Structure formats: structure tokens, C-alpha cells
């Protein structure tokens, strides 16, 4: 199998309810890969399965080696950062402390300090609020904190769960541009789950459409955008 992240025959669910029915997926190093699909298709479940938050069967390999199962902290230590649904904010901690939790597994203090400054460079508003409790920030700012926290782990793979949820369109666009910048500057591989298909296809390299727990369609972002079914179902084009 080639590919940086390779997923084969992945089944997962909650209790007796199966959500993923054999997902096969390959993500190349350095690409932004979008997972699109309707509500309930299993997008969030797929990310939770990748990072070990739920029980799975099937294989998930990163750079040729199997990822640990059911142990998110071990998956994180292998270089997978997950920005979860709901942003995972540590509400009573300050913005800066939130970022430092992201660097928890690192030992290189000086580089961590430099990375925190770099995040403030991406999101100047966070720099202004570094001493403020993260729970008091707006939704968009908390999403920036979540992204910043993920970046501070110096991940090799970034999983983003609906970063646009609840954000104003302009804020979303700003966030996506920064994700793209990081992806380009640091060759960070990104898997992005989104409802907002228009914007996502504009930023992604490749896209996969997840329907009822299986990948229904894969291709370059431009080809997926041109696909009739996608146009009708997710982009509101044609009829």
C-alpha cells in the first residue's frame, strides 16, 4: 500500500450501532484531503476512529506503521493532532495555557515558545487575549485556539472536524486560508471533515464523499466539484 495515511476496511460505531461499514481511504503526504457527506454519513465517526477515540476493526496506518487502537493519547504521540467537534477548549485555562497543553508531549522548550509566537502571528487576536480564559472567547476565536493547540504538537497529520461550524463566513475563510498556509509551509497533511462543500473544495487537493458509512466517490477536488451528483447533493447547483 502506498500513501501517507492508509485506511482499509475500517468499521466502527457506538455500542451496537454501526456507523462505518468498511471505509477505504488513502491520503498522500502534504495534501489537504476533504471528507464531504451529508449529516449522519459518519464523517465525525471516521475522524474519531482514526485517532483512537472509539473502537474499530480494520487497518489504519500512518507512514507505513499501524496506529495504536483505543488510545488517543498514544495516537497523539505518533504525530496525529485532532481538532475535535466542539473545539475541545479548556475553558478555565488561559489562551496561552491552552496552547501549551498542545505542546505537552514536546521537550524542546525554546521551540515551543517560538511556535506559540508563530500561532499568535497567524491569529493576532489570540496574542491580544493570551491571558484571558479560553472559555470566554467567541466561537471563532475558540476554533483558532483549537487549531493553534493542534499545531503546537508539531503534528504530521492534522484532523479537523467541521472547523466552520457556527462561524461567520468571513471567519471561516480566514481560518481555511491559515490552514492552507500551514499545509504549504510545513508540508502538513490535513484531513478536513466539512459540511461547507463549496469552500472546502476550493481549498482541498482531493475530496472523498462519505455516504452511509462508505466512501462513495473520490477524486481531485476539481473533479469532485464537477461531478453531477456532488453538484446536485452538496453544492446546490443544477437540479
Amino acid at each position, binding site marked *: 500500500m502506498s500513501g501517507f495515511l492508509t485506511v482499509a476496511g475500517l468499521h466502527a460505531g457506538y455500542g451496537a450501532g454501526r456507523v462505518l461499514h468498511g471505509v477505504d481511504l488513502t491520503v498522500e503526504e502534504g495534501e489537504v484531503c476533504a471528507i464531504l457527506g451529508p449529516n449522519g454519513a459518519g464523517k465525525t465517526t471516521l475522524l474519531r476512529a482514526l485517532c483512537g*477515540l472509539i473502537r474499530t476493526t480494520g487497518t489504519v496506518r500512518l507512514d507505513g506503521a499501524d496506529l495504536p487502537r483505543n488510545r488517543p493519547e498514544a495516537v497523539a504521540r505518533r504525530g496525529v493532532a485532532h481538532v475535535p467537534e466542539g473545539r475541545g477548549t479548556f475553558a478555565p*485555562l488561559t489562551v496561552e495555557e491552552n496552547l501549551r497543553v498542545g505542546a*505537552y508531549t514536546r521537550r524542546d522548550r525554546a521551540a515551543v515558545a517560538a511556535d506559540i509566537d508563530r500561532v499568535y502571528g497567524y491569529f493576532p487576536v489570540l496574542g491580544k487575549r493570551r491571558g484571558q480564559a479560553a472559555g470566554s472567547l467567541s*466561537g471563532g476565536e475558540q476554533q483558532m485556539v483549537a487549531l493553534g493547540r493542534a499545531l503546537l504538537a508539531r503534528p504530521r497529520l492534522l484532523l479537523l472536524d467541521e472547523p466552520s461550524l457556527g462561524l461567520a463566513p468571513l471567519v471561516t475563510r480566514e481560518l481555511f486560508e491559515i490552514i492552507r498556509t500551514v499545509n504549504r509551509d510545513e508540508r502538513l497533511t490535513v484531513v478536513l471533515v466539512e459540511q461547507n462543500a463549496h469552500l472546502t473544495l476550493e481549498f482541498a487537493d482531493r475530496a472523498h464523499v462519505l455516504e452511509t458509512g462508505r466512501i462513495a466517490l473520490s477524486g481531485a477536488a476539481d473533479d469532485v466539484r464537477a461531478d453531477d451528483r456532488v453538484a446536485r447533493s452538496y453544492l446546490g447547483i443544477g437540479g
Partner: protein
Amino acid sequence: MADFIQQLVEGLGSGAIYASLALALVLIYQFTGIVNFAQGELAMFSTFIAWSFVQAGVPFWLALILTLAVSFLGGMAIERIVIRPVEGAPELTLVIVTLGLFILVNAAAGWIWSFLIKDFPSPFPESALHLGGVSLNYSTLGVLGVVAAVMGVLYALFRFTKIGLAMRAVASNPASARLSGVRVGRVLALGWGLAATVGAVSGVLVAPVLFLEPNMMGGVLVYAFAAATLGGFDSPLGAVVGGLVVGVAETLAGAYVGAIGSDLKIGVPLAIIIGVLLVRPQGLFGRAAVERA
């Protein structure tokens, strides 16, 4: 006036003891969402360990340090053995488990050391410091000093160390902490260890006043619950302030409200618990469960 200041300091002295047990309760509640009814018994057991060291001829302060170390390891062991299997269970299950632990520890102490009361040495001189018309017992001042030192160490741990940051992250959002690579299981065990250590301090400090026996901490636990409720169960600072307020309120009520006297003092913490729950259920420093989405 001198008498009032005297009472105030005495109140702060007992309040400091309630504060340290309340802090132990809050530490465990923050990390695991468990209200640990056995906290007082663990403190009592630790005090017996200290007593055994002292009986064996170990100097008091060394005995205290050894006791704190044993308590720390014991707390971690209890988390692993007793609490880990019921992690995430319904609240009623957790309450019953800690009540079971209460009975177990209490009975074990009686079995090992018997229920006869024992004299516990005070590490502080019997005399008093005279300032103006006020005479302050060295034992009271010593208690305040020890508790202040413990608070200082904990504050530094949480505020300035990496593991302290990880502990606060786990208390706030364990799932998210795991995604950042924090080994949550270790942090929870550490939380129980710290709580047992802080609780042990309260036991060792109160033992010279109350005499040492297996049921020694029952009353103290009620005051600690009042303190934690007053301060807010999710606020370590609140536990400390709550403890001091409860101690002062109890002492002043006992001294100046004739109808209460020393017999009805135990009513004070109960009144505080009920009053706080009615007026401000999250406590003085607690966070109400409201957050921006």
C-alpha cells in the same frame, strides 16, 4: 476586642484544618467528578501511620514527611484498584463505592490500631505568643503555617509546572487532554495521590486536638463538606477560603451566640451547607455550569 481577635485566630486555626480536608475533596472532585466520602477516613489512616512512625522513635517532622509519601502512594493505589474499575459509572455507584471505602478504611484502622483513643504529639510548643492583650497559641500559628505551606506548594505545582498544567487540562476537558497526548489515567492517579497527601496533613494537624481514634475525622469531614460547598466544589481556592470562613464562623458562633455554645457548633456547617445550596449552589468561587458555545 482582644478577646475577639483571639477567637478569630482560633477560628482560622480550625478553619485551616477544614480547608486542607476540603482541598482534598475538591482535588478529587475536579479530576474524577467523585465526592469522596472516604476522604476523612483516609486522613485518619494516614494519621495512624504517622503515629506508628512516632511510636517507633522517628522524629516528628521526618515521620510527617514519610507519612505524606506513604499517603501519596496509597492514594494512587486506591485510584488504580478501587476507582479505576468504576470510572464513568453513574454517580450513585461512585457514592456507594466511596462509602464502602469509608467503612473499609475505618474498620481496617480499628483492626490494626484498636478503637482506644491515643494521645497524638503536637509538634509545636505548648506556650503562647503574647501580642498586646492577645495570646496566640503556637500550635494554632503552627497549623496556619503548615496549611499555608501546603497551599503554596500546590499552587506552584498547578500554576508553574507542566504536569500541573496537564492536571488542570484534564480537570477541564479529559477527552481533549487525551487528544493532546496527556496520559489521563496517570493524571487521575496523581490527583488521588495529592488529595490523600493534603488530607493527611489535616489529620496530623487535628489529631493533637481531638485525640487519635478511628472515628476522629467524622466531624471534621462535615466541616470540610461545608467548606467545599461554600467555596465551590470545583475551586481549590474556594475550598481554602471556605474552610477559613467555616472555622471562624463556628468559633465565633460558639463564643458569642449564647444559644449555640460549644454543644451546637456542629449546626453551623450544616446551616452553611443549606444556605449556600439555596442561595448560590455553585459556591462563592465555583463556576455555574454555563459556557459560551
